[in-house]
């Protein structure tokens, strides 16, 4: 795909831009070390995201979505369980 415009480097970029980003990254590392999924499965899950969602998501939002998908597919989470928890906390 093309047409994404010029590259925009950021001066002195920190390793993570928010606490949740670091947690998502290390959550993936921890889950892979426990054998819940592999790095290839994680990348595949990112690539399986619906294209519009993929393009609208930031980098670590993609990782988060892929982790959620894999945890559902592996049976650790029930389908819709996290969405329900998020809704529950909003109310």
């Amino acid at each position: 795909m093309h047409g994404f415009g010029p590259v925009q480097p950021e001066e002195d970029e920190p390793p993570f831009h928010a606490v949740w980003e670091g947690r998502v990254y290390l959550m993936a590392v921890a889950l892979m070390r426990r054998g819940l999924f592999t790095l290839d499965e994680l990348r595949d899950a990112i690539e399986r995201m619906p294209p519009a969602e993929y393009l609208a998501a930031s980098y670590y939002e993609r990782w988060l979505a892929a982790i959620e998908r894999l945890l559902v597919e592996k049976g650790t989470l029930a389908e819709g369980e996290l969405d329900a928890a998020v809704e529950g906390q909003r109310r």
Partner: protein
Amino acid sequence: MSDDHGDEERAENTRRVGLLTSLLEERGVVSERELDELVEAFVARTGPGQGARIVARAWTDSGFRARLLADANAAVRELGLDMAAGTAPHLRLRVVENTSEVHNLVVCTLCSCYPVAILGPPPTWYKSESYRSRVVRDPRGVLEEFGLELDPALRIRVWDSSAETRYLVVPVRPEGSDDHGEEELAALVSRNALIGTALAGSGAG
């Protein structure tokens, strides 16, 4: 695509990750405390400074330089660094050296493969669709966006990272650095220089 998300997205993502962590903790998979400790250790252990140390050693120790180019995984262990500490234990590190004839440039066209176990997360621009989609086709044009205009006679070699192999560039040692010690030399090597989008001694990035 957008990494400049606002406060609302940040709050939403923070909430979602917190709830996911709680669900995993309930199931005995991973705890919040463990994640915090992992983040802290990761940030302390990794970073562009580790790559700069590798380069400074290669510039000053020709034996190390030869070992580094031949088998980087083994050579960086001499500096207490370990490629197996990241997402997968089998990753190969390949070090490529810039010379007066060749300039090396690294990309991951598929996603964001990078020597994270040593350098920490890649910069956002490295993960951007813009960089990934154009650097193979038009490396000089992309380098100009980094303010880098290379001699047209210099060959550019672009390395595409993969799930198995990650790359690190040894830039050309700057002129006038002959009497520098390793620490001083390391300070000349930016994160971008380790990827090939900057030269050593050029400051920013």
